[in-house]
Every structure is written in C-alpha cells, then in structure tokens.
C-alpha cells in the first residue's frame, strides 16, 4: 500500500478475523541470542500469542526496540521492525505511529534501555499519550554488557565489578514513574505466567493511548537468584485502579512484585492537528503566494 501522510482512513483492515492465526505466524526463523532459560523467550511467546489472538495482520504491526538483550526481539518476529540505538525506541515508535496511525506499534526493550539512557523518553511518552504499547522487559540488570546494575537493580546488589559495593541507590519504580508522568495504562506481568502476560499485552494493544507493560523477565546468567521470583510474585493489590491518588499509594505499598493491571484511565490519545488537503498543489500555491509581493 502507499500511505498518504497520517491517513486515518484505513484502506486495508488491520486484522483479518476470517483467518485463524497462530503465534508461529509472527515468528521469524532467526535463532535468538538469548541464554537458555532467559525470561525473554516467554515474553516473545506472549507477544506473538497476543498478536495471534487479536488476529492482526503481520504487515500492519511494527516492533521497535533500542539496544540490549531484550531489544533483539524484533529480529525474532515476522513483523516490520526497527532495531535502533540505545534508549531511543520510544521516539522511533512515536514518530512511526504519528506518521502512520493505521499501524499497530509496539516498543520493546530492557530496564537499562528504557529507564536509564532512555528515561527522558519514557516520561514524555507517558505524558504525550500517543497510541502505542511499550513492553519493558525488566530483569534488573544489563545483560548484554555482562552484568552491570541497572536503574531497577536493588541498591545492595554487589555482584557487578562496576559497582562492587552495590549501587547504594534505591531502585527506580517504573510504575510510579509512569503514573507521575501521566500514563493512562500501567500493568505488570511476569514471564513465569505467560497467560496473564498475554492478556495484559492484548489489553495494552487495545487501549487507546500509551500503554505500559512492565514484564518481569529473569536473567538466568547474571542474576540467577531471580529464580526465586516465582515465590515472590502475587496479584497487585488495589481496590480502585482508576484513581491516581489511590494507585500512587498502592504502588508505594506494593513490593514491586504485584502482577496485573495497576492503573487504567481513559483519556483521548494524542493525535496531531492536521487537515487532509483536497489538493496539495493548490495548498502549496496558497503558501507560495504569501511570499509574493
């Protein structure tokens, strides 16, 4: 197809409900570089299962990433993808979605990519509320560079040669940050519960606006103790996920392992103001006339 800029009329359907789709329809034949037992396999599986359940046509989905183990994900899909530079997945996704609102856009990446080098973009994606989904695969460590502390690493984790005494800095709370920055959809899934994670991703994609899924995804190589996460996860405890004041308190009371929908608030997704010109040539001529004497 040949899109016109920002065309909102979708000439081709985004999904085809007449066809049965399987997760493998969305997977490429490229073998992941991930270690055996890496949580990211499960996130990839949940993502492809979500796309299959939504019956989205692969060519209408774009997966955007930065740098890191999890950011390798687009190559393992049979979708359009952009594997960019470290920390910048969210602006690439934002630009693509604004220019091509007909597409389903999903940004993926790790905790270092999203909350450290790309932290500013995370804040502004939350407040800008462009309609795309961000799945942050959080394993509390930089895996690709061989095991350094990330913003979500506990302050006393002293297994990195770079911070031999631990970071001494409290771990960042992505959900709290997202809420403060104005995100309308905040959820947390766990690689060990792929069914719930799939459902959270489906909800996120269907949400009209910026949707944030923090996917706890273990690093077997550098933080093997994360295998005990399965004993720590629990449903996120809240009796009102639509009230930001409530949610702020709920997030603070939570230990970071509460799973499920954390916050949901419907507000219009941001779309730029523009007009579909009847005639580009005459619109340009009008502009040119402003220079004429």
């Amino acid at each position, binding site marked *: 197809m040949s*899109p016109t800029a920002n065309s909102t009329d979708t000439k081709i359907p985004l999904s085809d409900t007449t066809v049965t789709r399987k997760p493998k329809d969305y997977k490429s034949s490229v073998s992941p570089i991930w270690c055996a037992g890496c949580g990211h396999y499960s996130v990839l599986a949940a993502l492809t299962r979500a796309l299959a359940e939504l019956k989205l*046509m692969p060519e209408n989905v774009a997966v955007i990433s930065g740098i890191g183990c999890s950011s390798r994900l687009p190559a393992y899909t049979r979708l359009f993808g952009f594997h*960019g*530079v470290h920390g910048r997945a969210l*602006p690439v996704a934002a630009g693509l979605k604004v220019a*091509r609102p*007909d597409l389903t856009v999903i940004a993926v990446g790790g905790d270092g990519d999203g909350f450290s080098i790309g932290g500013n973009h995370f804040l502004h994606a939350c407040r800008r509320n462009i309609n795309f989904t961000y799945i942050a695969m959080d394993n509390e460590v930089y895996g690709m560079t061989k095991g350094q502390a990330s913003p979500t690493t506990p302050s006393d984790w002293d297994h990195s040669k770079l911070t031999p005494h631990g970071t001494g800095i409290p771990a960042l709370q992505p959900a709290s940050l997202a809420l403060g920055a104005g995100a309308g959809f905040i959820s947390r899934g766990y690689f060990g519960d792929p069914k719930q994670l799939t459902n959270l991703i489906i909800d996120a994609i269907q949400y009209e606006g910026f949707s944030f899924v923090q996917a706890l995804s273990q690093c077997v190589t550098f933080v093997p103790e994360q295998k005990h996460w399965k004993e720590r996860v629990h449903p996120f405890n809240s009796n009102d996920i639509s009230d930001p004041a409530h949610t702020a308190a709920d997030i603070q009371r939570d230990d970071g392992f509460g799973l499920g929908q954390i916050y949901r608030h419907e507000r219009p997704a941001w779309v730029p103001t*523009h007009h579909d010109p009847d005639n580009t040539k005459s619109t*340009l001529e009008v502009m040119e006339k402003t220079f004429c*004497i």
Partner: protein
Amino acid sequence: MSSASVSIAIAGYGGTGVITTGQLLLTACTKSGYFGLAQRSFGPQIRGGESLSLLRFSTQQVLSADDTYKLLVLLDTDHVDRFSAEVPLDKNSLVVIGKNDAGVPDFVEKSGAQVIHIPLEKLASETSDGGENIVTAGLLACYLGIEKSVIRTVLNDHFKEKPSLLEQAKQWLETGWNCAISAPDRLDIALSDATQKGPNWLVNGSEACGYGALKAGIRFVAAYPITPASGVLEWLAPNIEELGGSLIQAEDELASINMIIGASFGGIPSLTATSGPGLALMSESIGLAVASETPLVIVNVMRGGPSTGIPTKSEQSDLNIALHGLHGDAPHLVTAMLSIADSAFTTGWSVFLAEHLQVPVITLSDQSLAQSDASITQPDLWQLQPERLTAPHSDAPYDRYALTESGISPMSIPGDEDMMYVADGLEHNAHGTPSAASEMHASQLSKRAHKLSDYDYGEYWAEINGEGSHVIICWGSVSSVAKEAAGRLTASGTPCKVIALRLLAPLQVDAILAALQGAEHIVVVEQSHGAQFMAWLRSHIDFPCSAKSLSIAGPLPIRPSHIIDSLMQTESPAQEIEHVANC
C-alpha cells in the same frame, strides 16, 4: 545625489523596535521596486537587549551586506560598543543620534562620520512615548525617495492586527516624514530610480527553507526548539498541517531525530531542524539512519560555536561535524544553502536526494540566512516529488538490503504484505538479519558508499558564476558575498569566477578540478576560525595553482572587500593559509 545601493543600520536598546523599522522599510522599498536585504543582530537578552536592524536597498538583487554603512541611526547610545564592530563606518557615513542627551560614541568619532542630531525620541513623544522607531521609518522612507502612500499602506498592513495602535503609529510616521521634508538635504540616502524589473518575492531564509521542504514532499517534522533554527519550525508548524502532515515538538534532539527515523521508516518523508548543539546530540542516530538506510533531512542552522558559543550570531563552523561527526564509516550527504533565495531549492533537492538515495542529508544554513529577510526575484524551486525505490511484491524472501548495481535497494514500508523486514543499526546481511561476518560488513559498507559516490548529482553540486583566472571557492552563505566581490573585480578589469559548493559531501572532485581549469589565483572563503572548508578541499584536491584561505570566524560577516583584498594580494606565499584575525 542618488545611489544604486544604500546600506542603513538602525540600533536600539530596551525594546525600541528597530526590527519593525527595518521590516517597514524593507516592505516599502520592495513595493517601490527595489531589492533589499534586512539582517538582524541581537544581544543575548530575551527581551530588551540591544538589537540592530541591518538594511541594504538596491536597484539590483543584493543578498549580502556591503563593506560599510552609509547611515547609522542610533535610537539609543547605551551599549553601542557591543555592536559597533558590526557597523563599519567611514568618513562618508552619516550617523543620526536620536536621543537629545546622548553624546557621540567613540567609534563614531573615530570613523570620521558626519554626526547629525535629530531628536527622534522627542518628536515621537509629541504624540506619545515609544514611537521613535516609527518616526524613523517615516523619516528614512522620505529620504530614500519612497512614495508617501507606499509607506502609509505598509504601516496600515503592519498594524492590521493591532488597530488600537494604528492611529498613533500614523501620527509617528507623519512626524518622521515631515521632519525629513523640513530639511530635505540633511540625509543623502536617496535611491536611484528603480528601472529594471523589481523583486516579486519577500521572504526570509527560514520560510524559504520550510517551503522548499514542504514543496518537495516533507510531511513529518519533529524538532526541539533552538536558536537560530526555531524560525524554520515556527513556519512549518502551521503550514505542514495544511498539507495533512504533522509536526511534533520533541522532548530533546535525541527524540526528534529518532521520531523522524520512525516516521521515515513508515514511508513518510521526514525532516528535523536544529543548530550545532542539537546536531551534536543527534550524531549517533544519524549514524543509525546511515546503517539502516533511512531517508532523513536534517536542517542545521549554524551559529557561533563550539558549545553554547554565540547562539544569536552566524558562523560556518559546523562544517566539520556535519562532514565527520558520525562514528564508523558512515557515508552521508552534506548540502548547503547558498543564499536566502537558494534556501528553498537546496532544501527541496536535499529531500529528493535523501529519499532517492535512502540516506540522511545534513543541509546547512546559518543565522545570517535564517533570520534575514530579502526581497528577491522568485528563485528556482526544486520541482520533483520524492521517489523512494519501493519494493515490488514478490513471493521470494524480501531482502531489504539487497546488493544492487546502484547500491540502492528497494524499500518496503509497513503495510506491504509479505515484505516485512527489521531495519537495523547492527551490521546485517542483505536480508537485514544481524551479522558480524566480515564479508557482510564489507559488502554493506561498500553498497552504502557507492550508492552516494556513483550517483550523478548533475549541475546542482555547485553554482558557478563568471569566468576568469581569479577564482573564489566558497560554500553556504558567504557565496553571496563572493559573488558581489567577483562582480566588482570583473567590472574593474579582473575577470573573476566563483565556484559556490552546494554539495559538500561527497565532494565532487572531478567537477571541481574541471571548474578550476585556467585558474591562476584561488582564494577559498569561509566563515570559520579553523579553515574547515580549506582542510576538506585539500584532503581531496591538488589545486592547480596557489590557493589562499580566507577564513574568518564569526560573528562578524565577511565583506566583499575582504575577499577582494585577499585575492588581489598576490605577494602572499603560495599555499599558505591566511587567517584573518577577527577583531
């Protein structure tokens, strides 16, 4: 006695509105059939600092400042030392001091210029305080020989949006006009009759750049505010909407460059505009666009550097970062706008090249172009729409980075059935799958280089004017100065040629050497301290004769006389780089 060209500077402090005076006079002269140029110079203050309107009116098209000013109007004499160097005066100059109690500044005294006291402030206050800039417009319009009805109409148009001020403004204008009538011989600045066909466009460099972008097909812009690039963005914001496109104000330049990468990946021709500090922040991601072969246009409006430098004043010192700022072997295009008039064409051509060659194009403007208005003959515009090589649907696996003869690979866009691929900054094979294999690296590096080096850029790589054994080589905004210098030299019996480069990378070596045939004296002109352009030329070209470097740092403009002096000073040792101190 009337003149074919008159240069006037009007200086004020504390929000006296001298830029408005300049705009009124430029519009009035333009409507009277004269060509004109209105440059601006500001201090660093957000409001109320010193500001300078630098005007030149002529019977011919003029796109550069002259050597000296015939007239300087000082509405205020506070802090004149801050801009005195920007207004060269000589004994033929006239200086009007518009404040009753103000003394004659030292630099005026030293120049030998004739000082004339006209109580502009007091004249304005007869109506009400604060209108001395409009009084000045009336005064100067009369002395320039503009019809009274013309300047009146221009004033009416200017105050269309502020009708409550119009009556007052009319009185101020009248006061200024009558003041001139009462002493008709006081200021000898009358313009000769506008005989030839006058200008038909009044535009500034930012508008021309923005219009060139939209006309050539740009429909997505993301950018972060920065001086002096914001004017391009502020023009684009309302206009791109009218064409169904979008502009996003990003959170920083890291975001803006990546937003346009995303939009371009989506098939929409995309652009950002920034200045040196922003370009530095974007460098990593411009490299991503090189590796992923994503078409982009980056307009870089240069200002004094390095670091925060001199944000409000012009310099051509971002050439090095534009050429060399990317890590790895990252071939890309660097183009330059040669004048206010050329800004639309060069931007349009840059859009076309980016899309056609699937490459980022850094196109260089500068403060002296982007923040100046000029009345001109409508310039040539780039006429073609972007033609990105699309990928035809095929059942065979789609290789996004297929090795082709031209090096340009067909590019699918999201939505193309069965044509999915992952764009990647990692080195990749022809399909797009990451690969660290040496042969993949070699073949992909080679395709990305030769798609640019083998392309035929046609005649657009430079503007070449005149013939002669004296040759000026230049680029960007100094080209207009060079053309004026060459015109004067040719008229005085030294035929002179100007080679003004619009395409800086890849450097068109064979074409430059062909253009240099017969050259016996060469001067390479640029506005940088480090002779960046000279170094770039020397790294590729053996000049056929001695070549001098005239390399002057900003913020002061290079003037025609600098170039003439440098070219005609034959005693300088050959091949010696001559830095002209900026004092």
